[in-house]
């Protein structure tokens, strides 16, 4: 009877408990790390019908974002440009590039180029570009350094907690509205000066980003 199990078995329940504890903490760590928009969305860079390059057009050529996203200051929706916007230049530059064939086809037929949407707020969220841009929230806070991206990727999580991080402390982010499309701009005086100037903007323009549910879920 007494010889049925070896002595080491006495430690087994403890070892099993430790093992289960370890497994559970790894799973929990995995879920916090992976099951969030910081993982699931950030880095999404779909293959576009035309390999449009922001680093060339907005960075190197120095075009303003509003040349193409011309409604961003005026409406809630920031438009992806029409084919005519591209043809302004591409009727004379790279006129027979095969990469631009979908644009020429769209310009001739009037059917849109099927761009793949990257940033998407869920349909139950109300989001408005012009409010943010007019108040001096730069594109870079929500889209990252687009002017250095050859292919646009999702740079920020766009989750509710992330929106609120700024809505609670807008002074950390707001700048002179003239500088919103200058994605390389940082306050020359560093963080402290940014917060000081931000506080002034928040006070002068009475900036009150909504933190109540009905502000964004209307």
């Amino acid at each position, binding site marked *: 009877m007494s010889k049925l199990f070896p002595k080491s078995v006495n430690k*087994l329940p403890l*070892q099993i408990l430790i*093992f289960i504890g*370890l*497994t559970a903490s*790894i799973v929990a760590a*995995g879920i916090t*790390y*992976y*099951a969030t*928009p*910081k*993982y*699931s*969305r*950030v*880095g*999404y*860079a*779909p*293959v576009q019908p035309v390999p449009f390059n922001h680093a060339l057009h907005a960075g190197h*050529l*120095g*075009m*303003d974002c*509003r*040349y193409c996203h*011309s409604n961003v200051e005026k*409406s809630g*929706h920031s*438009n*992806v440009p*029409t084919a*005519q*916007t591209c*043809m*302004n*230049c591409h*009727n*004379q*530059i*790279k006129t027979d590039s095969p990469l631009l064939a979908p644009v020429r086809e769209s310009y001739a037929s*009037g*059917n*849109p180029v099927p761009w793949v949407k990257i940033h998407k707020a*869920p*349909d*139950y969220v109300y989001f408005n570009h012009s409010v943010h841009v007019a108040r001096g929230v730069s594109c870079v806070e929500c889209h990252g350094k687009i002017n250095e991206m050859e*292919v646009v*990727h*999702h740079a920020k999580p766009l989750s509710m907690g992330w929106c609120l991080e700024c809505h609670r402390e807008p002074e950390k982010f707001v700048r002179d509205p003239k500088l919103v499309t200058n994605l390389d701009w940082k306050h020359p005086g560093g963080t402290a000066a940014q917060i000081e100037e931000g506080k002034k903007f928040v006070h002068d323009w009475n900036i009150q980003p909504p933190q109540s549910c009905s502000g964004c879920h209307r």
Partner: protein
Amino acid sequence: MRYAYLVLFFFLVTAISVLGFRGSTTTRPPLEIFPDMDHQAKYKPQAESAFFADKRTDRPSPAGSVAFGRTAIQSDGNFLAADDHMYRGTQADGTYARGFPSSITVDGKLLERGQLKYTIYCAPCHGAIGDGNGITKQYGMGATPTYHDERLRNIPEGDIYHTITAGKNNMLSYADKLEPADRWAVVAYVRALQRAQTGTVADVPSSHKSELGLK
């Protein structure tokens, strides 16, 4: 027990190698774990429609529809864009009008607005000072003219307005990007650029002469 740890380690390594790290670029669309009400049966701008044959949610305006002015309810000058000078840059006999429409006041504010819009929409080709040497010239846009020649200095404002609205030869229309009032602001700024190139010492107000080291 050692095997159990080995198996766990193996699972960990495979999971990390399949899932990767935060922020790595991928062409796979984001996974929606609970897509509850993310996609509702409503149309959003520039979205795809399952109903219309051409799949466009933004419907093109039907042929023959008449453009309405912004404040169509009152019959003011904007009603049905009736003011020819303001909306087409022409005068009663159909030729291009000189000067600015009566509803536009040319002042510092208008010029600032014009400068902003000019820098965004015109400078890539026409250059910051209107000499036609914008960044696109070196990539093959040889046709962009300078504003600083006799003909363009003397054409009516209405003609410049019409070039912005309808385009001219190789230059396409900017009507979708600039509202009529903004187009006039740009026209005013183009005029200011032209004036700047012909300025002389006599144009500097005497109160500012010392700043420039002039007498």
